């Protein structure tokens, strides 16, 4: 498959990059390098942290072609998330919204139940809803029914750089859910991003891994290449892995008759 054909469609919009910049640790150089070196076409912005004065307004630093993904971080229930999303739209941030609802300030784990409720309300209002969630299959199915545009399971606690701690459960979502699965939170190294993409994740959202790197642009490039490599491996179909030990030698198909 030619790379140009491999687009990620979210909320009716096409993306050629499968790296999405998260919002955890923000700096203007980070945005710049995420777009230039990591190729990000979508950038998360935390609405509650938006400066009300012009100075340091990050929106001024985000290039035109980049899609804004306002998030609802700080919301503790669906009603608050809905209000933040509507505010973002009024502020001109577009129709995309990433829902983050947390009632836990220590691990910042998402509240799936409230997230489903907010997704349903906002999808009906025409938002392209990207819900951040704990990787639970039943909740993911409910998000699909609620009208989500993608499902965004965490790989590990947010900001932890712990990698694919929830690997097996994310794999279940990839296998069972028809929407794009975007791995969000916990990815700390390019190799982890690559592994998630190999598994069939549609995109990677990361922030801390870049923001805390020694050389920001170099790490941004590393992520870009790792994500591309993982995606190509997934599309091409992984090669065989020989298990140790012989396969059963008794033929199972010896009973078949040629003429029956």
């Amino acid at each position, binding site marked *: 498959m030619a790379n140009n054909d491999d687009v990620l469609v979210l909320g009716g919009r096409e993306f050629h990059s499968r790296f999405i910049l998260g919002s955890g640790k923000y700096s203007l150089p980070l945005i710049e390098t995420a777009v230039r070196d990591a190729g990000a076409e979508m950038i998360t912005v935390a609405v509650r942290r938006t400066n009300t004065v012009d100075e340091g307004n990050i929106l001024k630093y985000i290039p035109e072609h980049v899609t804004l993904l306002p998030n609802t971080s700080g919301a503790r229930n669906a009603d608050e998330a809905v209000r933040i999303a509507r505010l973002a739209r009024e502020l001109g941030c577009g129709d995309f919204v990433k829902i983050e609802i947390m009632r836990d300030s220590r691990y910042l784990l998402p509240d799936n139940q409230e997230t489903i409720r907010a997704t349903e309300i906002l999808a009906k209002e025409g938002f392209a809803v990207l819900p951040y969630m704990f990787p639970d299959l039943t909740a993911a199915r409910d998000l699909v029914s609620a009208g989500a545009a993608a499902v965004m399971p965490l790989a590990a606690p947010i900001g932890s750089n712990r990698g694919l701690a929830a690997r097996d459960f994310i794999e279940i979502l990839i296998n069972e859910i028809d929407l794009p699965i975007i791995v969000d939170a916990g990815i700390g190294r390019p190799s982890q991003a690559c592994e998630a993409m190999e598994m069939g994740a549609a995109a990677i959202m990361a922030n801390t891994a870049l923001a805390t790197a020694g050389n920001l642009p170099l790490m941004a490039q590393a992520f870009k290449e790792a994500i591309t490599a993982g995606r190509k491996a997934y599309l091409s179909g992984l090669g*065989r892995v020989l298990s140790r030990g012989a396969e059963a030698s008794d033929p199972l198909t010896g009973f078949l008759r040629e003429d029956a």
Partner: protein
Amino acid sequence: MSGENSFFVDGKHLSEAALARKHQLENNPAMRKSPLEYLPGMEEIEPDIRSRVMGHVDSYQPEQYTAVDVRRALNRNRPDEEDLKALLSPAAAPFLEEMAQKARNLTSRHFGNTVYMFTPLYLANYCENYCIYCGFNCYNDIQRVQLTSEQMEHEMQVIASSGMEEILLLTGESRGKSSLEYIGGACRLARKYFRNVGLEIYPVNTEEYRYLHECGADYVTVFQETYDLAKYEQLHLAGHKRVWPYRFDAQERALRGGMRGVAFSALLGLSDFRRDALATALHAYYIQRKYPWAEISLSCPRLRPIINNDSINPQDVGERQLCQILCAYRLFLPYAGITVSSRESASFRNGIVKIAATKVSAGVSTGIGDHESKYEGREGVQENAGDEQFEIQDSRSLQKMTADMSSEGLQPVLNDYLYV
């Protein structure tokens, strides 16, 4: 297939008018209704699953797949639609043993070493359809019978006393003779004697499935026969069964009506068996994705000779091809039940339960009201028994089947579910 003409048989019992109508249906396609036209009272639901399945099937070119595609499919932890196509293609034939090994591992991972037993009970062989390959078709000259509720109960008692705990109730497709209430009554009776009651009857609407579920049925089997619409049209010349999409959506309506599980199948040999096998597996797969709580199972019948026409046979679907299909099903749907009926020989069934099948029938009669003579060897007690739908190959009793399965190292299971 050399053409459907070999299926046409004129019974001597038919009146001149009936013969004339039969010939018109056979020879003049303009006399036949469109197979896409719903009949009055048939419920229409959204066609999303039909579109997805047929999108794949219509573009499937089995001969385009190569050994490389098959190898890749075998290496996948979870084969996708493209892998399934490769596994069903002619290129997979040399990989049959490897497919079987992998299928065996998956089957034992999901089902252990169990093999589930059931038996069918035909309630009636009246039919309003003209499906030219079927022994029950309305023009075929056979002895027609419908069991009364006393006869049904007697049959159930005979079967239950053999130890069987699951029963599959079947009728010919005649709403006129075998009404919903008649079938509902049979379900109520069956619940007295069996822990699991399945149905293989004409497709009905959602609310009708709900009624049958309330009567005690829990599982619905509907064979699409062939997913090839053009071929379907040539084989199902008259009757409600002619409505292809209504039949296609039956499993979905059954699940919406509260049924626990649904079974799927094409009758292999009617059309291109690779496409039909692909369609069957995808149909089950997409239903399961849309209704994740549903239990799904697949059957794999091959065409069998019928009374008055022994030229009907499975054509190019040999045992090796059938085994390939079942292995592909298992690799693509590791969690699905796979039933292999008594249409197949004892040696095939003994082999395939070790690879992919999870359920076999035993003590089978496809006739009406003849269990006592068949189970207990009492000749002459059921002189008015109805004729059979097709000829079976494996006539082992439950007792014999249990012994044979045990000697193959498998654990026979009679029930694994509680009706709720």
